[in-house]
Structures are given as structure tokens and as C-alpha cells.
């Protein structure tokens, strides 16, 4: 039997029952579409978050009052809250005593109202940083500059604003050199950040950056600062972390047998934390559409059973004319495969479309995941073979005499 005959035969059989074929294919389309869409979203989200975390660099680590572990449970968080705050003096001490530390910076934040003329913005995040943070993170300035060490040392009231702030408060004008009121204090704008976009409704451009010293002076120094340290190289990370830890333990009088009363976090820890938090959700998110695919497979099987029963006589006739088991089996298997592969193809197309729409809506990067597409092809073909095999075998095994007698 020629391959072309097989295809034509299956196609004709499917065409003879258009609605039935359509509904069966629809099931597979829905299954594959949802798998592709969800995998694409998950991959896009991972990519974005991994990107964000990696932005802090693999040679940078954070020292802070709370570490990722302290967010794992309420008890851990409550315990961690009792710790002493990290002070700006600690930053200076590490700067002075840690020989391996290439850059030591700090950051803290608060929320205040912004005002420019009659325009206001409530609860904007005010980030106070050391001037060297730009060397440690991948922060990019769009126009102007960030504050200098000189300004930081003199508690200058200078500010770099996020793109969203420029849009809201200074539409159509160059904000640099203009005044911005943060709370009750007046600042001079010296720079605008490069737009960073948003993700899942969270705007990354709504912030202002001022010298950390100014923040502590104007908005209260009873807050813990996050310290960030850049190690000379990835290999030197552990040693650098140790140096910083020893300095802090000494300053905070931690007994040698006690655990650190502060947390040191690397980008790796953040990735791990992210993975822990979202891993299960990701698995479930992908597993649910897979169930839909299994259901679609059962539909294929059901329809193929009906098809075999309906065509018992045809099978008998074909066998009497010389069709072998293999021919009959291939005929029905090709039918199941044709539906599932066609449905899979459509599902991949729709899945990519849906993923594009959803990632757009969620401000996620649109990633066409090869894994998802290959998976879609593989799974839909697999569904066709697995769920088509039994009905096909059942048809192939029919006895020609009995089959021809079937009414």
C-alpha cells in the first residue's frame, strides 16, 4: 500500500464526518493551545525575573536585616525583626576594613508624596543610595546624572527621577534643573532614569533616587540599610563574603557560637528563592492543560472506536480483497494521527498567538519557547498514536468473515 493512498483514505474518512472530525480536532487544539500559551508565559516570566535578579551581577552580594529565608515563614520573619538595624556606619566600617571588597554601597527606602507645582504623586518610593550604586548594579541613567560622592557627603538635596515621574509631573518640559518637592523638602532634579518598563502591573519607573545620607537626615535614620558589596571576581565571592561577615559580627557583638544576626544574599540565593516560591505553581500551571490534552486524547480514542465499529463491514470487505492487518491498522492510525497532528499544528499557532496577547498584557517578554513547540508537536503526535493504537488494532484484528456479516 502506498503512503499517498493511506493519506487519501484517511482524509476521505475524516471528510465524511466533518462535524465529528471538527469536534475531535477542537479538543486537541484547546489542549495544545493552553499548553503552549502557559509554557510561554511561564518561560517569559522566568526569563524576566532571572534577568532582573542577574542584573545585580554574579559578583555582588547583599547584606541586609532580612534574608530570603526570613520570608519563608511568619515565625522566621517575626524572629528576624528583633535584630538590630544595619546602620550607615556599618557601611563605612566595611568600606574601611574589608580589603577584598571592591565597592561597598548601601540603599534604603521610604515612601513620600512628590509635588511639583500643583501636581502631586502619592506614595512614591524614595530610594536613598550611595553614589557608587551605579557601578555595582546595571542601573542606567537616561539624561543628566546621579548624585556624586561629594553631594552625598554634604547631604545635598539632589534627585534623579524615574521616567514615570517625568511623564506625570514634567510633561513636555526638560525636568533637569527644576525643583521637586519630596515630602516637605525641596530637591533639584539632576537626572532622569532610563525607562525600564513594567511587569504584571508593577511599574518599574515610578521612583526617585536621592543620596542615602540625605534620606537618613530628612526622613529619619531609624531604618535599616541594605548594604551591597562587589567582590573582585566570582572566585573571590566566598572570601569577600567572609571578610564582610567577620567585620559585621564583630561590630554587632555576635558570639562565636551564635548565628549571624543579619543576612547575606547573592543573586544565586534570589534565584533559588524565586524557584522555591514559584516552582510548584509552574508545575501545576503546566500540568492542568496537560490534563486537557489527555481528555482530548480520550476523545480521539472514543471517536476512533466508533469509527472502527461503524466500518466493520468495510474492514471485512477490504480484508477479503487482500488488505493485511497492517493495512487496516495503518488506515485507522493515520486517521487518528491526522486529526491529532492537524489539531496540534493549529494549537501551536493559536498557542503562540495567545501567548503573545497574554505576555503583552502582562508586560512579560514574549518568548517563543522551542520546548513548548516541540512538546506540542510531540504530545499531539503521541496522543494520536497512543489513543489511536488500540482502536486501530481492534479493527485490524477483526475476522474478515465476521466483519462482512456485520450489519
Amino acid at each position: 500500500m502506498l503512503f499517498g493512498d493511506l493519506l487519501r483514505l484517511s482524509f476521505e474518512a475524516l471528510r465524511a464526518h466533518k462535524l465529528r472530525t471538527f469536534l475531535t480536532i477542537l479538543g486537541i487544539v484547546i489542549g495544545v493551545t493552553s499548553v503552549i500559551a502557559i509554557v510561554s508565559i511561564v518561560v517569559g516570566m522566568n526569563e524576566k525575573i532571572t534577568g532582573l535578579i542577574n542584573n545585580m551581577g554574579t559578583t555582588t552580594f547583599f547584606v541586609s536585616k532580612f534574608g530570603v529565608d526570613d520570608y519563608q515563614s511568619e515565625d522566621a520573619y517575626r524572629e528576624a525583626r528583633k535584630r538590630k538595624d544595619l546602620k550607615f556606619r556599618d557601611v563605612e566600617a566595611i568600606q574601611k576594613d574589608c580589603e577584598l571588597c571592591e565597592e561597598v554601597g548601601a540603599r534604603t527606602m521610604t515612601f513620600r508624596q512628590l509635588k511639583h507645582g500643583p501636581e502631586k504623586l502619592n506614595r512614591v518610593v524614595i530610594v536613598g543610595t550611595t553614589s557608587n550604586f551605579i557601578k555595582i548594579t546595571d542601573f542606567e541613567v537616561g539624561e543628566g546624572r546621579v548624585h556624586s560622592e561629594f553631594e552625598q557627603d554634604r547631604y545635598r538635596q539632589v534627585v534623579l527621577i524615574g521616567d514615570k515621574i517625568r511623564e506625570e509631573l514634567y510633561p513636555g518640559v526638560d525636568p533637569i534643573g527644576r525643583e521637586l518637592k519630596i515630602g516637605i523638602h525641596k530637591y533639584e532634579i539632576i537626572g532622569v532614569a532610563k525607562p525600564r518598563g513594567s511587569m504584571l502591573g508593577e511599574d518599574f519607573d515610578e521612583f526617585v533616587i536621592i543620596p542615602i545620607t540625605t534620606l537618613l537626615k530628612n526622613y529619619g535614620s531609624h531604618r535599616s540599610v541594605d548594604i551591597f558589596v562587589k567582590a573582585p571576581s566570582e572566585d573571590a565571592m566566598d572570601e569577600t563574603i567572609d571578610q564582610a561577615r567577620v567585620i559585621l559580627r564583630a561590630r554587632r557583638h555576635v558570639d562565636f557560637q551564635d548565628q549571624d544576626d543579619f543576612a547575606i544574599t547573592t543573586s544565586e540565593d534570589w534565584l533559588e528563592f524565586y524557584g522555591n516560591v514559584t516552582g510548584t505553581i509552574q508545575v501545576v500551571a503546566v500540568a492542568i492543560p496537560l490534563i486537557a490534552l489527555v481528555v482530548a486524547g480520550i476523545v480521539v480514542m472514543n471517536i476512533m472506536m466508533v469509527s472502527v465499529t461503524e466500518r466493520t463491514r468495510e474492514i471485512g470487505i477490504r480484508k477479503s480483497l487482500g488488505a493485511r492487518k497492517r493495512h487496516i491498522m495503518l488506515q485507522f492510525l493515520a486517521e487518528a494521527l491526522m486529526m491529532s497532528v492537524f489539531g496540534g499544528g493549529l494549537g501551536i499557532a493559536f498557542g503562540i498567538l495567545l501567548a503573545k496577547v497574554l505576555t503583552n498584557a502582562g508586560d512579560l517578554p514574549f518568548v517563543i519557547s522551542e520546548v513548548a513547540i516541540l512538546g506540542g508537536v510531540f504530545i499531539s503526535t503521541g496522543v494520536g498514536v497512543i489513543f489511536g493504537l488500540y482502536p486501530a488494532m481492534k479493527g485490524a484484528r477483526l475476522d474478515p468473515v465476521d466483519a462482512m456479516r456485520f450489519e
Partner: protein
Amino acid sequence: MLIETKNLWKTYIMGVQELHALKGVDLQIEKGEYVAIMGPSGSGKSTLMNLIGCLDTPTQGDYYLNGESVSTMNDNELAKIRNKEIGFVFQTFNLLPRANSLHNVELPLIYSGIDTGTRREMAAKALKEVDLLDWAGHKPNELSGGQRQRVAIARALVNEPSLILADEPTGNLDTKTGLEIMKLFRRLNDRGNTMIMVTHDPEIAEFADRIIYIRDGEVEKEEKRSGKVQDVH
């Protein structure tokens, strides 16, 4: 010798009971013969036809087709024999309802793996032999009973088999149409085709050159004929 059976038995197990449909049938049919197998219903003639047609295998005994032992063949080998050596004509025509005449005639060739072009030619030639070339594009439900049976005969002829096996070929046809089919059979036999026809109708059986009577799973008697057949010419 085209067909030779030796002590052919076919036993069906019905629950705990054994039912002997054939009890040691010995047959010899030469190439080019026109044989009718006759018997009342339940005589075992259909079972015999299924065995001769390689649709089924005997419980016991030997069956040689063209000198080859068929009784020991597996499913695939039997399918090949059916495809190449036997052309079936059934009482109920057994055409595929959704396929046109040409495609129905083509079917055995599909399973021989013959390419589309050659297949079309061969099928058209077979349809021409039964005077139905003009109806090649029509589906069975657009044809009369006689025409359908002629399509089935064309299908039986198309692979140039060693024998044509007909099971009550006129059973679903009126007398006049039945007669036409018998004329066609005669013509095919005259051209050298071996014809075996299973029937319960004595009038139809008389068109054959030899009648084998089956009763209760055994050959009751045989009869050579050479008279009436000439009448149909």
C-alpha cells in the same frame, strides 16, 4: 489442478457443543472449470466457500491452491492469496458505499502496491469488460443492482486472479438481471477464468458445467453438465 482439498474439516465450538460444519470434504477443481457448489442453507457450503476463498482456515485437512498448501498459512500470507489469486463476488455486492465504481474496482490493486496510474488503467479495463466504463464515476447508490454486481465482478477480475468465487451472486437480483450476470459469468469462463459459484438455487446452479452437491457438511454427489449452459448464449 487448481484446487485440491483433502479431508477438509471445519468445527465451530458453540459453548460446550462442537458443531461440524464440514466433515471431511474432498474436492478437485481444474483450471478453467465452471463449478457450482449447491446445497440448502446450513449445509456447510458457505463455510466451504470461506475456506476455498482463504477467508478462513480449516480445523483439519489440507487445501492446495495452485499446488500450494493454504491450510498452514498465516494471516498475511492468506491476505496475499486473497489479493492475487481470488476474486470475490458476493450476494450483497460488498462495495464501499462512499467510493465510486472506479475506486471500488481499484481496491485490490491498492493492496498490491500498484502505482496510481497503472491502477486506474487496469480498473478502467476491468470496468470495460463488464460494460460499465461509462459509470466509472458513479457511486454504488447511483447504480442498479445488476450494475452494482457488475462493478463487483470487475473488482474480482481486476487482479487477474486464478479463480473467481461467487457467493449467491444472483441472490439479491431479479430474474432478468440474474440471467444477465449468468451470461457474463459464462463469457468470463469461456475466456478462461475459473469460476466457482456457491448457490442454493438449482436454476442458477445449472449454468455451471459441474455441480457439487453439499449436504450436512459432506459432498453428497457430483454432476457433470453440458446442455443448458449453451442456451444462454
